[in-house]
């Protein structure tokens, strides 16, 4: 389901462009609206959430898809923690659906998926690990790298149990917007993957925006 937001970028209290291959790690307060814009289209924003009050509570892909009874994320999806609590809810979306089964790329999984020679290519997990190292005040480490959301990414599942990485359903300027239900730490890796169509073989910037609650 597509649903446009009523909020305008001009009224955002925060805006930041995040280049591909970089991370963005910030706290979003309960009630604030958080948007990720696929500025140039077909990008993948690999995203994790932690409770700011207790960062040992993290976003859980398995709990989220099971509780909504659907593998795809979209408007109305509550993003659930491993404690079963709603961390955020998707309130606007001009893409249609987002993936949370494909996980983040890593140098090691790249060796399996593509070739052992690809092991030194930049990957989302490297960005995550740098983010955790440079933001030690959150107290997070590799063990907290749970399975993430891939906003803007299209990973269709077939009734026979197949799974593919398909060309994106997103496009330039499309966005997804969510309302924080608790204070959350947001960790995004703007995916640097050069080996598959999740970002059209062409990693591009995203923009994040935050609005205060109305």
């Amino acid at each position, binding site marked *: 389901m597509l649903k446009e937001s009523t909020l305008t970028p001009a009224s955002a209290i925060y805006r930041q462009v995040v280049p591909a291959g970089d991370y963005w790690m910030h706290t979003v307060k309960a009630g604030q609206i958080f948007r990720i814009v696929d500025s140039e289209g077909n990008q993948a924003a690999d995203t994790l959430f932690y409770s700011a009050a207790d960062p040992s509570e993290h976003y859980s892909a*398995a709990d989220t898809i099971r509780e909504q009874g659907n*593998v795809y994320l979209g408007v109305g999806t509550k993003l659930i923690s*491993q404690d079963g609590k709603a961390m955020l809810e998707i309130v606007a979306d001009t893409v249609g659906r987002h993936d949370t089964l494909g*996980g983040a790329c890593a*140098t090691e*999984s790249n060796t*399996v998926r593509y070739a052992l020679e690809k092991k030194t290519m930049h990957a989302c997990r490297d960005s995550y690990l740098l983010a955790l190292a440079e933001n030690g005040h959150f107290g997070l480490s590799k063990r907290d790298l*749970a*399975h993430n959301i891939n906003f803007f990414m299209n990973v269709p599942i077939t009734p026979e*149990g197949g799974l593919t990485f398909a060309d994106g359903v997103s496009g330039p300027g499309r966005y997804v917007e969510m309302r924080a239900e608790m204070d959350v730490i947001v960790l995004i890796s703007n995916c640097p993957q050069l080996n598959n169509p999740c970002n059209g073989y062409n990693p591009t910037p995203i923009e994040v925006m935050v609005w205060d609650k109305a």
Partner: protein
Amino acid sequence: MSGVLYEDVLPGGKHWSMVLKRGVALKLIDKEGGANVGMLLYNPANLLERYNAPDTLKCQHTFKLTRGNCLYSDMGRIFCSIVEDSVGWHDTACGNTTKAMVAKRWGLKSYQDHRNGWTQNGHDSFLVEGGKYGLGRRDLAANVNWFSKVAVADDGSLAFDPVNSKAGDYLTLRFEMDTLVLLHTCPHPLNPAAEYPRKPIMYQLLKAEKVMEDDYCRTYRPENGRGFENNRIYHLCCGGEA
């Protein structure tokens, strides 16, 4: 696979854990039909290396697990291969029951009142077993649910199959590296049964045959050949037999 080295029964709604060495096979047998075995895997030499369901699925372009599939760690290595499977579909996307979920669906039976008949849940089971090795709630990942099938319709909606596994159905995991295995026999979180399902399994330890170049799992997908190569390099680095 040679003779059974050890076997035991886990009653329904229970949990256990063990470290399985490379070259050991673990056979799980559904004794009555309708069993569910939740499982998580870690490298005992580096607990930060753990079973990664997204990598496992995307590396093999599959949503279900069956014979030929390998279970990958987040480090591009194979914990174990599914060398036998009479079931055909195992879930690794739907997670665990929690205490709250069990209370809502089936009603809680406390230990005080019901002793061994209490209604244990998968989440707490993993916390208990993981805790024995220093693992906690931060370390929980998407687990496997052996014997359980959840299909996905074109619109993405999930459907639990209540007759996926029958009495006597089985699968065998061949361990390709030393692995800490956490497991429980609590119900699948989407099981709609009216009563808390309490399904026992038998598990057997066997000595696996040497993995040949033309091994079914190794050649099941080109990615698995590279996964096995990552394992070979890992064991070389450890100074062991590659």
